[in-house]
């Protein structure tokens, strides 16, 4: 077993555990931290695939920016322990079987398609195109219009947030 192979399973396990913790934790801040754990382990998985740029951006954007705001708001509101509600009947009798069915279906397709058999076997096994330069060429030449459209969309969202926040005063 090669080292990247072992690392993949270690970080995949951490990511899944983080996701489970996120749901099970009672304190909001613990949930937020569990989500950060998921983000960081996902970044490590990207790194194992040789996608350094995406790994770094994953941490900067999700763990470093968005989740900091989450934690900040939780701290600012000093949110206490969350209250649990009983499971709704629909979730219990329809949601749970459907969820299990979806999981099985996904597992079935993944097992049949053989996806991941090549990528989990080493850093950058078939990902030479993932270099930052190649990525930026794609973003700023081939997909320039969608990229700029997304930026404007985000800008509009920021302006919308500002307008909403200012309404009271």
């Amino acid at each position, binding site marked *: 077993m090669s080292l990247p192979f072992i690392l993949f399973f270690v970080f995949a396990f951490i990511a899944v555990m983080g996701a489970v913790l996120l749901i099970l934790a009672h304190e909001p801040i613990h949930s937020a931290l569990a989500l950060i754990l998921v983000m960081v382990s996902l970044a490590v998985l990207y790194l194992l695939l040789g996608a350094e*740029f995406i790994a770094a951006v994953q941490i900067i954007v999700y763990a470093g920016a968005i989740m900091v705001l989450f934690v900040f708001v939780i*701290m600012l509101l000093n949110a206490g322990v969350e209250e649990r509600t009983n499971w709704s009947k629909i979730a219990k009798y329809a949601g749970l079987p459907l969820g299990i069915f979806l999981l099985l279906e996904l597992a079935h397709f993944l097992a049949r398609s053989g996806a991941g058999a090549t990528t989990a076997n080493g850093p950058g096994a078939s990902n030479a195109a993932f270099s930052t330069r190649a990525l930026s060429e794609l973003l700023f030449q081939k997909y320039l219009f969608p990229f700029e459209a997304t930026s404007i969309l985000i800008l509009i969202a920021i302006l919308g947030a500002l307008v909403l926040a200012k309404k009271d005063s």
Partner: protein
Amino acid sequence: MEFISQHPVLVVSLVKIVILLLVALTTLAYLTWFERKVVAHIQSRWGPYYVGAHGLLQPLADGVKFLFKEDVTPPSSDKLLYILAPFLALSLALTTLALIPFGPATIYIFGQPTKLIIANVDVSLLFLFAITSIGVYGVALAGWSSNSKYPLLGGLRSSAQMISYEVAMTLSVVGVLLVAGSFNFNEIIEHQAGYYWNFIPRWHVVPQIVGFLCYMTCAVAETNRVPFDLPEGETELVAGFHTEYSSFKFAMFFMAEYANMITVSCLATILFFGGWLSPFPDSWMWTQYIPGAGLLLLGIYLAYDTVRNMRGIARMQLAVVTILSLGIGALCLLPSVMPVVQGPFWFLSKVLVILFFYVLTRGTLPRFRYDQLMAFGWKLLLPVSLVNLVATAAWFVYGWVKQG
């Protein structure tokens, strides 16, 4: 030995990590000594004086003191996060050092050729920002988990401050990226080789002076240092986010702060001052002797100081430092070692100069008010670094300079 031959990269990296950690932790300890000495002399005091010659053993004494103090955990605190926070802060602060290249030379460990850098990734700069951006959690969680008023306010302040200044800091650095055309530290440094009129180094600080000033200001704010040390403003918040911390956990926050200082100074050196490049042209062969000769001169001065000013046990301690300095100086003059030490020597010298300015600002400037701090970051530094970015981009687009 079999393990070494099977996993050469892993073993060599581990050796380098251990060496770097030892050096970094020693440097951290002596940075506190350096800071206390410089600030003391600014204020016409002597600074650490009694423990060891010139107070040189003071960091060791402080470390021992921290280790043996009672470790108090507030009963109402969130235990897990309370313990996690200092570890997060220190380990992340030290991790960034793995990305710093110390020299161009190739060295041999167990017969394996390797560079003076632990992780030479394609996007070093982004990784550094990624790691420092998670560093906010150390401070924020420390403030929150203490479950006490002042730490919470300190934690909130510092996370707000670090988020705000991170934006301007990142933007101020993009100009350099445009000039260098790479995210990789080694490539950024190599791009700065060469000279204007054969003697002024082509460091990025010349075309990117605005970016540099923005960067340094943000860097001081990022590391929560005077004049931006609002998160721990004693007069308002007792000690900010680490009020409730004692013993070695407090020491870890302290060390994290100094490690962050070292990291941002290293980054400034890499991005703006040519990293491990010598400030002198390569054709001046005699400059190769500067590291060794400098250490020898320091050793001679220390020998004079030992004989002239020191008495008793302090004399013996300084004698050890003298011998170390003379020995390393002589080692640096060996023909096989000389080319290797050039890079680290110039790199560390530049970092030391920047750290000196850091300490100088701490000793001379008063603290900002909190609203001034926020206004300064968002209303001045951010627009200035944006303008700098646009100007640099325009510079390239309209072809006033050839991109390398």
